[in-house]
């Protein structure tokens, strides 16, 4: 299923990734699931609360997720997935990503260097957790 993200939200993700560098950033993708496409309407920043090694790890706490869900529901929207950055690493899910992923959610990964975001790709965990299917990102 393609993921549609408008230019403004792409810019917001890129800005967050650059600001957080060299640490990983993370946030929520909020919008509408039409059944044929996920349409991102807004992105909400989250705090990376991983205890250490935030250059290579991120964590969004469950109560933050709960708040995102409630906020999205109040606006008649869905929590479609999450974005995070990979400082100086490709925009591809790692084994660590796979071990911690949830089905259904789109995982947008931004590969960010010291001066720019080099790549942004979206991934969906397979049902059997064996890997990911890449989702096309539409502008």
């Amino acid at each position, binding site marked *: 299923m393609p993921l549609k993200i408008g230019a403004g939200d792409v810019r917001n993700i890129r800005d967050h990734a650059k600001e957080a560098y060299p640490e990983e950033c993370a946030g929520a993708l909020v919008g509408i699931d039409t059944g044929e496409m996920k349409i991102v309407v807004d992105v909400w920043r989250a705090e990376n609360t991983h205890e250490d*090694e935030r250059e290579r790890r991120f964590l969004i706490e469950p109560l933050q997720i709960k708040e995102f869900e409630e906020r999205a529901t109040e606006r008649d929207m869905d929590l479609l997935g999450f974005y995070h950055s990979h400082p100086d690493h490709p925009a591809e899910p790692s084994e660590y990503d796979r071990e911690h992923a949830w089905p259904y959610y789109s995982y947008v990964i931004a590969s960010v260097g010291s001066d720019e975001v080099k790549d942004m790709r979206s991934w969906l965990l397979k*049902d059997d957790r064996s890997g990911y299917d890449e989702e096309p990102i539409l502008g």
Partner: protein
Amino acid sequence: MPKVRIPTPLRQYTNGSSEVQVAGNTAGETLGNLAEEYPGLKAHLYTGDGRLRSFVNVYKDDEDIRYLDGPDTEVSEEDELSIIPSIAGGSAASRCR
């Protein structure tokens, strides 16, 4: 029977339901019965050796069961368990030394 609130990513395995009722006297028993009744959930809730995955957080009302009695936390007919995700991940970068 206690209620279990199902997070968005798992509703595809519960026929779209955001809340289900499942028998159980403890949190562990209730979740185990949930996975039996909706087998598609099992791989996403439990590791291969039967432990709850670390990013699967279970709350009894507003309390994380880790701070109660864990899987042995008692649940009554009126209680509600909620499965709430943590979202975690990271790159394949080597550990900083």
